[in-house]
């Protein structure tokens, strides 16, 4: 019995010696102040379109109202080949973190069948698009980076009568829009 006690005691002492304390110490963990602020330049809250086409008959370009995250164009008329309205907008990064344009999503007008293609959609006689040039030749594409603090991106919303014939009766398209998603780069 005495020998057994000594053995058990010995074993216990041996086990208690076989342990180690592991410590993971963090040094200072600092969070510097950062801001995330990607928005439309809304220093001008209304934007007048540039009109294109032949006569002004049947053409009226609505004014675009601009807030930080929304642009809304008022009622517009385009009625004959060549009629065109171009609104100049600017996206800016006022935050301290770089941003990437992750996606551009066109939404067709209600109950209208359109052919979407990136930042463009053709809906019957009307083509809607967002471009990076006023002439409307270069579509906005995703993937671009907007640098922090001072990054700006001029973009152009264009609505154009691209059909080749006249409209026999009045037609209104409602609800067309583009959604731009920016994420941190």
């Amino acid at each position: 019995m005495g020998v057994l006690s000594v053995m058990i005691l010995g074993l216990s002492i041996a086990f208690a010696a076989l342990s180690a304390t592991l410590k993971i110490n963090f040094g200072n963990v600092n969070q510097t102040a950062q801001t995330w602020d990607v928005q439309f330049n809304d220093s001008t809250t209304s934007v007048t379109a540039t009109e294109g086409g032949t006569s002004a008959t049947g053409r009226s370009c609505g004014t675009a109202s601009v807030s930080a995250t929304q642009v809304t164009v008022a009622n517009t008329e385009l009625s004959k080949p060549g009629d065109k309205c171009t609104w100049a907008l600017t996206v800016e990064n006022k935050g301290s973190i770089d941003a990437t344009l992750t996606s551009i999503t066109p939404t067709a007008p209600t109950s209208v069948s359109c052919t979407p293609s990136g930042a463009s959609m053709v809906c019957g006689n009307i083509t809607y698009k967002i471009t990076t040039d006023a002439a409307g030749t270069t579509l906005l594409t995703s993937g671009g980076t907007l640098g922090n603090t001072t990054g700006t991106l001029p973009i152009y919303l264009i609505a154009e009568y691209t059909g080749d014939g006249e409209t026999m009766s009045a037609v209104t398209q409602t609800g067309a829009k583009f959604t731009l998603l920016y994420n941190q780069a």
Partner: protein
Amino acid sequence: MKRNNKKIMYKIIIVLIIVSSILSVVFAALSTTLTVNVGNLTQIATKWNISVSSTSAINNYGSSGTGRDCGTISTSNNVVTVTATTLSKPGDLCEYSITFTNGNSTMNAKLDSLTATAPSGNTCTYTTFSSCTSGNTCQYKMVCGNITYTLSSNESGTSAPTNLASFTGGTTTSKTVYLRVEFTGSSPSESAITQTNPKFTVVYAQN
């Protein structure tokens, strides 16, 4: 000791989970959706209708009817056709009026071009005017040997058809020009000559 090690391990795991959660929440917040709404876009009903509304033969001129036979004029689907005409001596003339109408077009129209086409195999000289779109052909008279073809704003054939320059949308307006085919040579031909397919082509474009 063993229990203490486990407690320490649990604490480390808990700290790591908390840190990971914080990082996840911070990452999900860094995105912005910008929306461009077009609003109502209306195409109003439009009408484009520039056409030939009427034609008529108005004058046969010349000293005598010998060797002169003015063809009849008709129009269909904006094509004016003059049937076979015979002009054989100086002064022979056939003249027709042609009326263009905008037919309640809602859009303005402008004379884009007016092209005189020579009879097949003939060389003609042309007279131009400036009422067409800049840079486009704008001819109202062609002289092809003994025969002169003219589209004029007056019956005497002395004025270019500047009245065709434009139509204003929204109102019905008619404009008349005079088609003259005249023997302007100085002497009759010694043999029969036929000039085939001379024509004028009038093109309007939206303005």
